[in-house]
């Protein structure tokens, strides 16, 4: 187990270096002068140009520039946004809770529906229930979620008028960000109406963002269950005279969950990608929209380091998933003697 963890941690280092090389290289790959790219659209004075060359060390050899960049990154200095002139980290931290809040809800939505649906489909293999569930899952998996979001808005907000179209909370409420999580903040402020408003704003984005992970998890759970149900130890469990519920729900499920947990972990990256679209559609003030806006605004400092931060977060989550995988899999947790 310890060996596995250390091994896994060791693997992170080259990936981390690779990610920084990517984000470092990003600005230098943009056609044209990187200084101009990093100084925004309006152009610069000769004086400012010289300071920037000095700041980024563009007169230095490329590897020296890289190590300089790496040094800054390690110190937590991700530069300033070209548009707002505020530190990238500060902007990131301000917007991150919104994305996390949405992401957690979407993931819970996907797991709570996806895992049972997959188990059901596997147990009722070949029946209309199985075909219906898996057909639905395939539609979800094939869904262009930006369109799905628009459809939801047309129907629930436009036609039925049930849910708000955009934002995190009604305009009449002002929440002082304490945790940054709107639901938590509204409860802390003791404002129940604000809490309900925040919850209503979450519904559609959650469904839209959770659709693809839901489909993936349901499909993966079904196939993992089917595979496990053919194993010898499931036959043994039946031969013991155990009830069907115990055989499926304990002996089979426990084993099937091992690959499913990995799949769920991989959805974090998917969610990050989906957040870009979902947040754009619902004007959700999170990281995804921030990054897209920065691309539109050619705010390369934000794009460069926002990309880096997101990649590092995804990597850390994946690392956790790997460790979790080791914890739930006795074959790794307990070394054979």
């Amino acid at each position: 187990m310890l060996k596995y963890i250390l091994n896994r941690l060791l693997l992170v280092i080259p990936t981390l270096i690779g990610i920084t090389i990517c984000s470092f290289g990003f600005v230098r790959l943009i056609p044209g002068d990187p200084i101009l790219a990093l100084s925004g659209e309006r152009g610069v004075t000769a004086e400012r140009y010289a300071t920037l060359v000095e700041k980024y060390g563009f007169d230095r050899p490329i590897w020296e520039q890289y190590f300089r960049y790496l040094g800054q990154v390690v110190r937590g200095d991700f530069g300033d946004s070209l548009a707002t002139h505020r530190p990238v980290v500060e902007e990131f931290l301000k917007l991150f809770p919104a994305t996390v809040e949405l992401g957690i809800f979407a993931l819970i939505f996907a797991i709570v529906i996806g895992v049972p649906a997959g188990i059901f489909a596997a147990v009722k293999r070949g029946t209309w229930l199985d075909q219906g569930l898996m057909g639905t899952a395939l539609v979800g998996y094939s869904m262009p979620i930006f369109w799905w979001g628009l459809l939801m808005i047309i129907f629930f907000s436009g036609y039925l008028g049930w849910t708000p179209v955009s934002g995190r909370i009604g305009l009449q409420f002002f929440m002082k960000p304490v945790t940054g999580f709107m639901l938590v903040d509204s409860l802390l402020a003791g404002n129940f109406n604000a809490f309900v408003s925040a919850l209503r704003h979450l519904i559609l984005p959650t469904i839209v963002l959770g659709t693809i992970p839901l489909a993936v998890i349901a499909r993966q759970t079904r196939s993992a269950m089917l595979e496990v149900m053919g194993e010898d130890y499931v036959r043994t469990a039946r031969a013991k005279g155990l009830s069907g519920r115990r055989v499926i729900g304990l002996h089979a499920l426990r084993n099937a969950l091992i690959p499913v947990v990995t799949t769920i972990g991989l959805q974090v990256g998917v969610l990050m990608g989906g957040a870009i679209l979902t947040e754009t559609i619902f004007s959700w003030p999170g990281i995804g929209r921030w990054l897209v806006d920065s691309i539109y605004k050619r705010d390369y400092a934000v794009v460069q380091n926002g990309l880096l931060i997101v990649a590092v977060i995804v990597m850390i989550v994946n690392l956790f998933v790997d460790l979790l995988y080791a914890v739930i899999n006795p074959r790794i947790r307990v070394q054979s003697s």
Partner: protein
Amino acid sequence: MSTVTNAPETHKPVSGVREFWHYFSQNRGAVIGLIVLLIMVLIALFAPVLAPHAPELQYRDALLKPPAWQEGGSWTYVLGTDPVGRDMLSRLMYGARFSLVIGVVVVVLALVGGVTLGLVAGYFRGWVDIVIMRVMDIILAFPSLLLALVLVAVLGPGLVNAMLAIAIVLQPHFARLVRAAVMAESSRDYVTSARLAGASHLRLMLVTILPNCVAPLIVQATLSFSSAILDAAALGFLGLGAQPPTPEWGTMLATAREFILRAPWVVTFPGLAILITVLAINLIGDGLRDALDPKLKRS
């Protein structure tokens, strides 16, 4: 020994293709998917003949006309018109060309790159493997759509750059898959036998091992085909893929967004076209996986 189930001695020789079709055709969804895809291909090929109007022609007197069956619609514009008076149906038909070409180009690029890298990594192992797979891990550490976005931001918006970016993002999946398959096959006795027969590295890789890794590759290629279409449409939707007035489905959605509550059809149909195409391909992919899965075969 009873672990090994003997194939019946009198197995009538069946051609591989026919056997494959036998399994594939048992999956109703896959057959439907195949038919839908074929129709899409035909529409794409014969768009100039089939489309009632030119895709970029703007009818100034028919802005935002609803579909024919709704009040105010007319059969001149079967699926209505968009905000600048272009016929939706014709644009959708031409749009099929883009989606299918995007899918094919991206899959070919990703396939060639991924197979080469995966084959080399899985066959030679050692440091070559470590270097290649670390690089793949780095690409996979970025959320794919985000990476594609950034690549497009670097390369400049446009359909060609979008395809390139998506291919780069999809490529590691092929590399990983091929590597795993090659490693599994390499340890099998028939590869050792071929080596003992004097086969060179190149022959072992390309003639002996690769053909036996084709089944998972076909499935992966199909799935990548659909995700390429989705990603390209997403980039188009974000304004970084195909540029207006190109009748690409994602781009059409982007330009129609502000009219969603006033004229839902300008949003509904392009998205539906994407969904149907992607769904058809995924149905085929599932059917292929079932038909090519060695576990189900010969049981």
